[in-house]
């Protein structure tokens, strides 16, 4: 590109491509030879229609146009060229026998022809008229290109006004490459926008991490309540299976009730319904049953530690499938979190008391199932289905699956109609179950499966915290250190990055 776009045509003009339009083959050939002798290329059109077609297919620098032609004459060609923005600026020189076509020449010039050439032309005249038209065209092209760049810069400024600072959205890359004042202005403009975008992006990510961390802690805290409540319910004569039917059923009613109130009950396709069935089987049946069996045979602290492995499983799957970023920093974050949890578990509990190897291997199913749930939720969740409806459907389906088993094994809990302590407890557990899943669902959707999987750490710590609160124990400095380590881990893991462009609300115009 030229450095001085508005002062062109002083250097040696490049070859031009000229379109010769004439129905007379001898005239066409004559003009072609003449144009070639001037050092330009010529292409020939036998009539107006062919000329218009060729003009849309290639960029011509000028047209030598005969006026009297059958079917579509030179005036028609000229009018159509001027009406089409892509051919409007191609200069047209009409070729005429001046002696008896003066009126035609006048009309052609009124229609936008650049110049005229007598049929019995002199090569010098052709050269002069062609060069004059070509240099005007070059000047106009450069002017158009320059104004086009100004328009693009203005459009980019408009985008900034709408909060779009992402350099990719501004699309100024090719403008920046021009080594002229406008190119330098574009470079400064893009550089500043980029700087602001990067800064805002960092801030946005920090906020997302903070929000995600709070959610992880909240999920952990709510989930951490479940074992304590289950133990209390067991003390009141409940059994795990019957309890699960009631708790899931209540949670389902609660969530679906809210979805109904929000008028968000979905119309599901078979494929979507299948997703909820899978989810109910994984989370409502397999996880629950595995937990019951593993909890009976593996020491609780050891089980907590094993559950935390889900983060690494999710990470590995994310790395293989590419569904999320899987870099050293995030892996390091997971390891830091694990060390925080281990710090608590190894110092407070006798992990070594553990269990037989076979049960430890069986317990490994748990993190696998949790990871599977996180991945299914992150990857296959029908995103248009409301969060309350989603959780309600899953809980409802798992209650429906478990109920026949509970009935067959005589484990159905006869609750009500009087509201006693057990009824209140079951209601509370339903509430806790629903809210923990809602939080988890939201967390997976916003922060991704890898970040969500850290809730296993929070759950373990929460178990300790609830124990401490309930037993009135003080939090030791070691526990505080463990908390800090887990938080540091979350900072390193960072929530998944959103592909959508960050909009920055800012107004510069008055």
């Amino acid at each position, binding site marked *: 590109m030229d450095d001085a776009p508005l002062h062109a045509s002083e250097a040696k003009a490049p070859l031009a491509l000229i379109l010769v339009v004439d*129905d*007379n*083959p*001898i*005239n066409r*050939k*004559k003009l072609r*030879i*003449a144009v*070639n*002798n001037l050092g330009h290329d010529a292409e020939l059109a036998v009539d107006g229609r062919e000329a218009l077609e060729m003009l849309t297919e290639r960029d011509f620098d000028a047209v030598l146009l005969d006026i*009297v*032609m*059958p079917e579509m004459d030179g005036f028609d060609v000229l009018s159509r060229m001027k009406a089409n923005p892509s051919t409007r600026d191609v200069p047209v020189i009409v070729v005429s*026998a001046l002696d*008896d076509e003066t009126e035609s020449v006048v009309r052609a010039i009124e229609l936008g022809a650049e110049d005229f050439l007598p*049929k*019995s*032309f*002199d*090569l010098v005249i*052709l050269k002069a008229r062609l060069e004059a038209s070509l240099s005007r065209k070059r000047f106009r092209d450069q002017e158009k290109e320059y104004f086009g760049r100004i328009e693009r810069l203005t459009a980019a400024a408009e985008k900034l006004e709408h909060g779009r600072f992402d350099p990719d959205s501004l699309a100024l890359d090719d403008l920046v490459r021009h080594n002229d004042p406008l190119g330098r202005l574009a470079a400064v403009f893009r550089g500043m926008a980029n700087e602001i975008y990067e800064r805002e992006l960092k801030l946005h990510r920090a906020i997302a991490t903070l929000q995600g961390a709070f959610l992880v802690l909240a999920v952990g805290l709510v989930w951490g309540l479940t074992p304590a409540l289950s133990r209390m319910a067991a003390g009141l004569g409940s059994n795990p299976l019957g309890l699960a039917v009631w708790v899931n059923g209540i949670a389902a009613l609660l969530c679906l009730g809210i979805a109904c109130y929000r008028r968000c009950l979905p119309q599901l396709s078979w494929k979507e319904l299948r997703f909820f069935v899978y989810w109910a089987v994984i989370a409502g049946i397999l996880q629950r049953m595995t937990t019951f069996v593993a909890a009976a045979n593996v020491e609780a602290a050891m089980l907590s530690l094993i559950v935390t492995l889900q983060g690494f499983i999710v990470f590995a799957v994310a790395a293989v499938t590419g569904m999320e970023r899987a870099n050293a920093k995030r892996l390091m974050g997971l390891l830091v979190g694990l060390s925080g949890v281990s710090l608590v578990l190894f110092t407070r509990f006798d992990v070594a008391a553990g269990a037989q190897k076979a049960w430890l291997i069986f317990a490994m199913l748990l993190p696998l199932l949790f990871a599977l749930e996180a991945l299914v939720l992150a990857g296959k969740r029908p995103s248009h289905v409301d969060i309350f409806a989603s959780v309600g459907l899953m809980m409802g389906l798992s209650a429906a699956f478990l109920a026949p088993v509970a009935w067959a094994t005589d484990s159905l809990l006869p609750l009500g109609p009087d509201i006693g302590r057990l009824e209140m407890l079951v209601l509370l557990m339903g509430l806790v179950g629903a809210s923990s899943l809602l939080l988890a669902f939201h967390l997976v959707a916003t922060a991704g499966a890898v970040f969500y999987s850290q809730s296993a750490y929070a759950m373990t710590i929460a178990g300790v915290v609830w124990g401490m609160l309930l037993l009135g124990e003080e939090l030791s400095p070691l526990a505080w250190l463990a908390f800090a380590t887990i938080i540091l881990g979350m900072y390193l893991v960072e929530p998944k990055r959103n592909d959508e462009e960050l909009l920055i609300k800012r107004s510069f115009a008055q």
Partner: protein
Amino acid sequence: MRDDVIDPSALERLLAAIGGDPEDLEELLGDFQHEGPRTLSQMQSAARAGDRDALRISAHSLKSNARDFGAVALATACEGTEHAAITDELEALRMRVHLIATELDRACGALAKLAQRDG
């Protein structure tokens, strides 16, 4: 020697316009030997069919070639037909075309002779 049918200065102008290469001029002269009769035949068909516009355009086309090659009488006959095409009786137009045929024949013959002499 001055030819009655062809004006040699027109041929010189044409040669200058196409850059001065006699071979190019020869090629154009060759083209005229078959394009001229072809245009005439179009004029004859148009005159027979009463297609005045086609007759006018063909006459215009042949006129410009005739001028380029210095066929003055042919050019004049074509110019007259071009103007008369819209207004004159068809019979009169057919007469004009007949005249053009004669002039074209003469012009082609004279040009062929010239080409032979120069070649």
